[in-house]
């Protein structure tokens, strides 16, 4: 790419930035009341979830989250379709192994805590799942080529858990004559917890598997 084109692009980007700022600033300065925010906060008791973000993610806009988990699944399946993983690093030294032996359970525990706490305070499926995934990353860095993941069929099951829990709960509710993902208020809290747990496992497993970066070598381990 030659210098003149670079300059042109930089200029255009600057103009675009100025235009966007010109449009955004007045709006940001006098941001109108968000009706949606008020409604979201007001309806929270009905969901049985204390953390408003979790309420949005798993109740009001649960459908978005369902599709998002499908995106995650699609990414993993895409990665698998491209072939086997690259070889892992060499086995870590004893000191590092000892540290990993400490860190991984800690990450898993913290992930579980975040999942559980996510109903009331900051945290939830994504953060918990991310920590599980991080545990996988650490394991792989330590030399485990599978990042602590089970054999392929189980990986497939884990990766499908999130979307699966959502779709099955949704379809069962449809079958019961309710709207898709319209939780009965008595069960809302528990259904959300079930879905969240499934999603946590799925996110953790998917992120770790994505880090491994290829289709697990068939069946056996």
């Amino acid at each position, binding site marked *: 790419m030659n210098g003149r084109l670079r300059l042109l692009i930089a200029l255009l980007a600057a103009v675009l930035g100025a235009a966007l700022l010109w449009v955004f600033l007045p709006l940001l300065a006098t941001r*109108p009341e968000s009706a949606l925010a008020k409604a979201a906060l007001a309806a929270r008791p009905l969901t049985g979830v204390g953390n408003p973000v979790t309420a949005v993610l798993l109740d009001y806009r649960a459908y*978005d989250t369902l599709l998002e988990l499908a995106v995650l699944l699609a990414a993993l399946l895409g990665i698998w379709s491209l072939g086997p993983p690259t070889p892992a690093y060499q086995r870590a030294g004893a000191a590092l192994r000892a540290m990993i032996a400490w860190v991984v359970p800690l990450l898993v525990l913290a992930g579980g805590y975040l999942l559980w706490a996510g109903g009331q305070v900051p945290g939830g499926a994504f953060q918990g799942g991310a920590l599980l995934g991080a545990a996988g990353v650490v394991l792989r860095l330590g030399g485990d080529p599978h990042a602590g993941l089970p054999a392929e069929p189980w990986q497939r099951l884990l990766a499908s858990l999130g979307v699966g829990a959502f779709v099955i709960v949704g379809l069962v509710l449809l079958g019961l004559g309710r709207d898709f993902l*319209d939780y009965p208020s008595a069960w809302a809290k528990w259904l959300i917890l079930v879905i969240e747990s499934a999603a946590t496992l799925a996110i953790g497993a998917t992120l770790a598997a994505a880090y491994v970066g290829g289709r697990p070598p068939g069946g056996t381990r």
Partner: protein
Amino acid sequence: MSASLPLAVSLPLLGALATTLAPRRARTLGLIAALASSAVVAWLVVAVWTQGALRVDLGGWSAPLGIGLEAGGANTLLLAMTALVALAISVHAGDYFRDRIQLGHFWPLWLLLWAALNALLLAADLFNIYVGLELLGLAGAALAALGGSRAALSASLRYLLVGLLGSMTYLLGVALIYTAYGQLDLGLLATQLTAGAAEATALALLTLGLAFKAALFPLHFWLPPTHANAPAPVSAALSALVGKVAAWLILLLWLGPFATVTAPAGATLLGLLGACGVVWGSWRALRAERLKLLAAHSTVAQIGYLFIFVPLLQGLAPGSERTTLIGALLLMALTHGFAKAAFFLAAGQVQQHAGHDRISDLGGTAQRLPATTFTLGLAGVALIGLPPSGSFIGKWLLLEAAIAQGQWWWIAPLLAGTLLAAAYVFRVLARAFNLEPTPQRFVNQGRAELPGLVLAVIAVVGLGLAAGGLWGLLEAVEVER
């Protein structure tokens, strides 16, 4: 009845899970899922036909809090086209991918793509469209790379990156709308949006983001290599469905919630880009050396036609004239969808038989596969817009509107596109006639050849002669509202 809306998304998802869990049985499970998804869409079409437009608030939360799904006249028709084309692709793919491992990769991704298509067509929420677009982009890129060649990988990577650029741009538009209006539901926004700088900028960002995905000229550069190098069933899905859905979303925004924001200048610009796409895509198709590349370039042209409608619809108040023109737009989109899918499936057949798809060396192969050649011919007729295909009627109505509104300059790209399309289609068909030995049968491999043929017949005969029903559905929904 309204259950059919979420089912149209969740059944393909369920199929994707089933095929993920049991990759060895992917073919059987996938076909079952494909049939079930198509059946649900059929149910939905009947429901819309008898009851008018449907809307479901998911999770029991009505807008603005929850996410809605809507089935009106236009998107129901697109949904039905998607189901038919997807079913044909599903049947064809079982034969196309001979390798069980490849089938195991294909099926879940393909069903995820289908779920994304249905989700986008039914979507009534700006952010939900973003998530759907990402699912579409990731699944599409992964599918396009299934061929595994270096060219396919490189093209798919570019597709993925361009898709990401598009969705980020789109998301900025969403953020702008949320800043100004504090909500995301299209139905509510339609009642509140007013003309203004912020709204216009938001529309520009949303359109730009979607234009990347729809391959609207000049943002089409990624499309030809991707579609030409993907496995044929995937190319069929990408060309016939993915681009159409993105184009549909642009049209939905322009004709729906943002109708008060749009200005004639913007609409004319969009039409102009469409016209450039028609001429440029057709010209490149004419120059293409390979059959699939030809089809891919022609997709750029076919997307262009849809945008020529925008400046003509811009000035029309709701009424029968507008419904007629929207119907023509849909007819064009549906015909192209069916025809392009058929064309790619047939091209894949040719490629598998000949081991290549160089147009100049096609002679013998085309002669040995009469049904496939016939499919190419019929699909070609629809791509050109010759009667009795649906696109002929669409083009007639488009010309009529252009003349009646005094915007006669749109005639030039339409006629140029038609003649160029004729030139590139018959450049291929001319190879079908040579001195090769006589084929004994019309159809040799039913599962591989018939899906494409059926799609082509739908495009040419079904949509041509039974197009009246389309307006029937559109008007049924209008009246309901």
